[in-house]
């Protein structure tokens, strides 16, 4: 039942690792919670769960594991069953098993057991017959029967219900939705977009040791300190995002990328603009594409030098005419004298480095709606799917000249 809790947690999507599980074992062995299911509930959560985003899943797993439990004594038995043969823990990968063996080499099982039994003794004496522990004494596989050989549960209000009740309330449901999971990985991928250069506008703040020695020697031994500018990232980025229509279903994904890029404070400059389906004469600085936020694409090209790294985000799925026809733009009242594909080629020619991140997974590009336009766009831009791996590959591409 106890190991089942571990797997229930994983099944409900709580990312629990063996390290944390072992920490819980240590805490239990140290007597931090075994006599009280309420305390076990919060102890296990503090040790196993590291984000409130998973509290709800934890509650559900807890309920599934301990819903019908009367006393935590049963848990105690299970813990020791597990300690007797930890490697019989089912469902572990080879890697985890290997790590577990290593870890257990360092955990002194006998010491833990001694501690556990000491606490057990203390507890029973302290509660003097009122504790549920008395009951465990007799049935525990460790034969701590000397304390109360009868093995009878003598009174004591069972508080176990409350923990289960707390779990059943599922108070943390609200925290599931508003925590963004996954931006960190995007951030880490974007972080590789870095070219250190000391040619920047900052003040000299690093001691240049070689130059200092040189200058001091020239100065007949009188100390002369030479400072230099520390190296800063020189990468500048232009991010163009497709919004609206077929992109709505990818809103969260795009918002994650946006957040990650925005938080990446290491860029020298970062600009955002938006477009719908394809880039034409106008780009928009507002995601709602309102007219007052429109900027001429030519102006952007004129303003931003070629060393900006261009990242386009979109599904590249549109009607054929939107991409290749004059006046193909989807909006009434707008006229594009040149087909979208020409604009894309122009962007590609202008910037030294550019990539297209597609929200559609790569293995669907050939059969998704818009496969035709995807193929055409791919002829212009190197295309990657918008996943952590895809972004990593794209960033690599942005760092080397094609």
């Amino acid at each position, binding site marked *: 039942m106890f190991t089942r809790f571990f797997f229930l947690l994983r099944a409900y999507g709580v990312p629990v690792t063996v390290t944390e599980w072992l920490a819980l074992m240590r805490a239990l062995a140290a007597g931090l919670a075994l006599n009280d299911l309420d305390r076990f509930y919060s102890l296990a959560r503090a040790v196993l769960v590291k984000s409130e985003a998973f509290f709800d899943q934890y509650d559900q797993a807890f309920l599934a594991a301990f819903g019908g439990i009367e006393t935590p004594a049963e848990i105690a038995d299970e813990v020791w069953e597990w300690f007797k043969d930890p490697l019989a823990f089912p469902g572990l990968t080879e890697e985890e098993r290997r790590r577990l063996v*290593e870890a257990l080499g*360092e955990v002194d099982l006998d010491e833990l057991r001694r501690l556990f039994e000491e606490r057990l003794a203390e507890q029973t004496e302290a509660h003097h017959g009122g504790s549920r522990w008395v009951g465990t004494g007799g049935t525990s596989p460790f034969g701590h029967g000397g304390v109360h050989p009868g093995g009878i549960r003598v009174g004591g209000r069972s508080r176990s219900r409350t923990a289960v009740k707390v779990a059943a309330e599922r108070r943390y449901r609200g925290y599931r939705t508003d925590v963004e999971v996954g931006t960190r990985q995007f951030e880490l991928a974007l972080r590789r977009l870095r070219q250190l250069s000391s040619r920047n506008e900052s003040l000299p703040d690093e001691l240049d040791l070689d130059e200092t020695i040189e200058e001091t020697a020239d100065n007949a031994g009188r100390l002369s300190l030479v400072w230099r500018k520390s190296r800063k990232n020189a990468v500048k980025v232009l991010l163009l995002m497709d919004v609206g229509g077929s992109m709505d279903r990818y809103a969260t994904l795009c918002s994650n990328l946006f957040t990650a890029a925005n938080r990446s404070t290491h860029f020298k400059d970062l600009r955002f603009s938006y477009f719908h389906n394809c880039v034409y004469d106008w780009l928009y600085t507002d995601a709602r594409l309102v007219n007052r936020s429109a900027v001429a694409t030519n102006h952007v090209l004129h303003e931003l030098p070629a060393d900006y790294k261009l990242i386009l985000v979109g599904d590249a799925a549109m009607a054929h005419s939107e991409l290749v026809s004059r006046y193909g733009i989807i909006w009434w009242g707008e006229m594009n004298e040149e087909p979208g594909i020409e604009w894309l080629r122009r962007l590609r020619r202008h910037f030294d480095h550019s990539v297209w991140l597609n929200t559609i997974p790569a293995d669907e590009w050939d059969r998704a709606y818009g496969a035709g336009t995807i193929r055409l766009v791919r002829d212009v831009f190197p295309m990657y799917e918008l996943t952590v791996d895809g972004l990593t590959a794209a960033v690599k591409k942005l760092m080397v000249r094609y």
Partner: protein
Amino acid sequence: MSQPSQPSDPSPASPATSAPLSPASLVYAGTGDYIAAPELMQTVNVAVQLSRPLLIKGEPGTGKTMLALSIAQGLQVPLITWSIKSTTKAQDGLYVYDTVQRLYDGQFGEGDVADIARYIKLGKLGEAFASPERVVLLIDEIDKADLEFPNDLLWELDRMEFYIPETHENVAAVHRPIVLITSNAEKELPDAFLRRCVFHFIEFPGEAMMERIVRVHVPDLDRTLLDMAIEAFYWVREISGLQKRPSTSELIDWVQVLAGGGVPPKEIRRRLPFMGVLLKKDRDVELAVKALERNRR
């Protein structure tokens, strides 16, 4: 690419797994001016007993930093605070080697230049390790720092020691400090780091508590207005799909704007005037407007 560039990740075999348990005599039971929830008290004690850092997360204004003060008072040990800024590096917490001072001293023949130790200044983490008595070390707002910052501290926090190559000296903790780390969740923290922590989430205050908090900040406020505003505030927080739910500070701004704008209290819940003070994202405002329309029908 699940866990890129982890310098040293000895995972389950990490020393923390077998770190010595702290003496059971160290038990935190709250202090007079800080009333800790029983659950929080227990978690503090678990972290102390397991000798693991305690990570405290919660929205601003939920008393994360105060907790460290209270633990230090409760256990009657000194508190060392290391406030993290966006430019803080892990090395700053260990020690700083003042080369320039040493060069100048060499130039002007002041002090004993041969003694490098004179120019090694311990950082906050170093201080906590070197302290002859047990201390509480607060690493405040760890999420302000660079993404890799927590990973850079893994080894030091596990082993509670570090090496100074300049003086061939090893700074090891005499007593493992009680480490408290706070985070506003501005950035996600790396998994390897999280695995080593005990975690506690301070929940968002309930309505009664919130009323007290607002009263502290805005003392002379019309009672009905405050009640209505708080009711509307919690209603807004419940709208599903919000990207950024309003927090305490936004409520405090909002009630002030409401009071200043002379909005009749009855209108607050129905129209959500000055909604922009509560919701900062366009999409959130749209969602709130839709929810209002549904409500009116």
